[in-house]
């Protein structure tokens, strides 16, 4: 536990080969065990075990990384999770189906709408609800894409902040505020919306909300061009990020990475296209993938560029949804909400949906009562963080900060 605080002093006895003794035997033994545990094949030079986090600002939450470092070089990274564990799955077994939604909000608090949608889709599948009013479906797409933009803005903004670019971070948050204002007007809350319910929406659209959203999109597109001029096209930024944290596509697939992390490695996989949910199949958009223009494919920069491209795709989707929703604005958003949610005993549904961070799955099992028997959440961030060891080996500690930023984890989603 405290062994990493002591730098080892070594005495090498020639007749016993490489034997390591320590001034503080207890600390030394810990260190040795830690090394064994971390599968360090041979240790030479000055290896140290250092904790990064859980209060480190660049780990984007309460993530503790146990690093084995040799000077600045990272030899091994072990993420330690659980600091933000809030027992979502057990809570869900003790509340009714609808009351789980506020807890879903708090999983990935940067993209609450997408989490709500994932859970709502799972319960709707369990209930056999397939035909929802068009207004509901288009509003779900609209709010989810707005939230995707807000989430990606945090991702790219803090990514810039991690290497010292402060202006783009403030600009990203300025535009995110506008989105949060829109969603606050719609649902009443800024981050934890509880807006998408099973079979419908919590509230109707306020007057003028659609026009204001269109206004925002018109305002936002030039701002994104400015953002790219400041950060994305900056040569120093590109040179810094283009060849670190390389995640080959095979490794991304084998670790179960999804979302921009997978697409940054050049794999074209997006559930909005491959397994369309809600009304995504009626809308026209592209799936941006990493191309490796400036360095090896799957680098930190590729993941960043995928997010920037996805923001533009989301803007495209929002424009189409705003046009498509026009004929249906008179519909009642709560028409299809079931009076009682009591799915048949033993029925089970697993639905996956695409959140800004990747594939979110919810398994819901019913025992016939109004309380779910089991709810299991498959978090995209948990799978994405698992590659951090493989892609950070051999790099610098400063690169590790960037790698974590490019994986864009939310600890609420990792720990649940």
């Amino acid at each position, binding site marked *: 536990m405290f062994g990493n605080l002591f730098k080892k002093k070594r005495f090498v006895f020639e007749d016993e080969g490489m034997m390591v003794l320590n001034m503080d035997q207890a600390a030394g033994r810990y260190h040795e065990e830690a090394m064994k545990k971390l599968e360090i094949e041979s240790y030479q030079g000055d290896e140290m075990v250092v904790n990064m986090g859980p209060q480190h600002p660049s780990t984007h939450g309460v993530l503790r990384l146990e690093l084995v470092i040799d000077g600045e070089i990272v030899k091994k990274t072990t993420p330690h999770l659980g600091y933000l564990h809030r027992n979502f799955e057990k809570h869900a077994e003790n*509340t*009714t189906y*609808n*009351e789980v*939604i*506020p*807890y879903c*909000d708090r999983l990935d608090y940067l993209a609450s709408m997408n989490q709500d949608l994932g859970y709502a889709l799972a319960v709707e599948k369990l209930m056999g609800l397939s035909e929802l009013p068009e207004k509901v479906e288009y509003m779900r797409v609209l709010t989810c894409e707005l939230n995707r933009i807000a989430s990606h803005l945090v991702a790219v903004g803090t990514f810039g902040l991690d290497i010292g670019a402060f*202006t783009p971070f403030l*600009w990203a948050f*300025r535009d995110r*505020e506008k989105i949060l204002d829109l969603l*606050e*007007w719609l*649902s*009443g*809350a800024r981050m*934890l919306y*509880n807006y998408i319910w099973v079979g419908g929406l*919590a*509230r109707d659209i*306020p007057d003028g909300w659609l026009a204001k959203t269109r206004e925002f999109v018109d305002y936002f597109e030039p701002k994104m061009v*400015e953002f790219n*001029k*400041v*950060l994305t*096209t*900056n*040569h*120093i930024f590109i*040179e810094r990020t283009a060849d670190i944290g390389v995640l080959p596509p095979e490794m991304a697939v084998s670790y179960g990475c999804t979302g921009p992390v997978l697409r940054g490695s050049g794999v074209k996989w997006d559930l909005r296209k491959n397994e369309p949910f809600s009304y995504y199949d009626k809308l026209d958009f592209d799936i941006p993938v990493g191309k490796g223009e400036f360095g090896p494919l799957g680098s930190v920069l590729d993941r960043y560029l995928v997010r920037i491209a996805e923001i533009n795709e989301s803007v495209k989707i929002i424009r189409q949804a705003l046009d498509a929703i026009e004929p249906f604005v008179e519909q009642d958003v709560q028409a299809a909400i079931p009076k009682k949610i009591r799915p048949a005993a033993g029925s089970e549904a697993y639905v996956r949906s695409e959140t800004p961070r990747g594939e979110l799955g919810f398994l819901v099992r019913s025992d016939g009562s109004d309380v779910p028997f089991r709810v299991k959440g498959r978090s995209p961030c948990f799978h994405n963080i698992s590659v951090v060891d493989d892609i950070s080996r051999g790099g610098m500690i400063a690169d590790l900060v960037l790698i974590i930023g490019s994986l864009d984890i939310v600890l609420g989603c990792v720990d649940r």
Partner: protein
Amino acid sequence: MGNYFSDIYRAITTIAVGMGQTWKAMFRPATTLQYPTVRWQLPTNARGILFNNVDDCIGCNKCVRICPVQCIYMDTTKAHADEDLGKASTGNPIRQHVVRFDIDMFKCCYCDFCTTVCPTECLYMTDEYENGVFSRDNGLYHFSKYSPQEALALLKRDAEEAQVKAKAKEAALAAKNKGSKVPA
């Protein structure tokens, strides 16, 4: 060597482009507010501190049951036939004394479920969001219109009535049992 100089050239030009953008941004109006003096106008449906207009509350207990975090505490006692508690503004007759209606705003998760189920719409969320307080007790909001003494008296009356009722039931049961035994 050529690469070295081209890198420097591209770095300088791209930084110049970026600095041009920040130069432009300098002459734009600020997007920030001087918070304590200038305040944000929240939308009318913003979800802030809960408020219960207890004159309209019929004590139906729906909000207590739907709350995912159990932050609403309610005690009610039945009104007597000769007590007229009037009607709520939505027309629902009030048949119960709401002797206790407390909301623990420290526990509240601002999910808005309680206001959607409220039949008389007496429970709603205000746009008040600055609920920092100096003591933990101040986070518990009391809404009942009865003083603690009155509430206690009403609860006592209710308990006594329940006792009387239970005794009567027992007596009736005993009488029934006795009656059934006689023919046998």
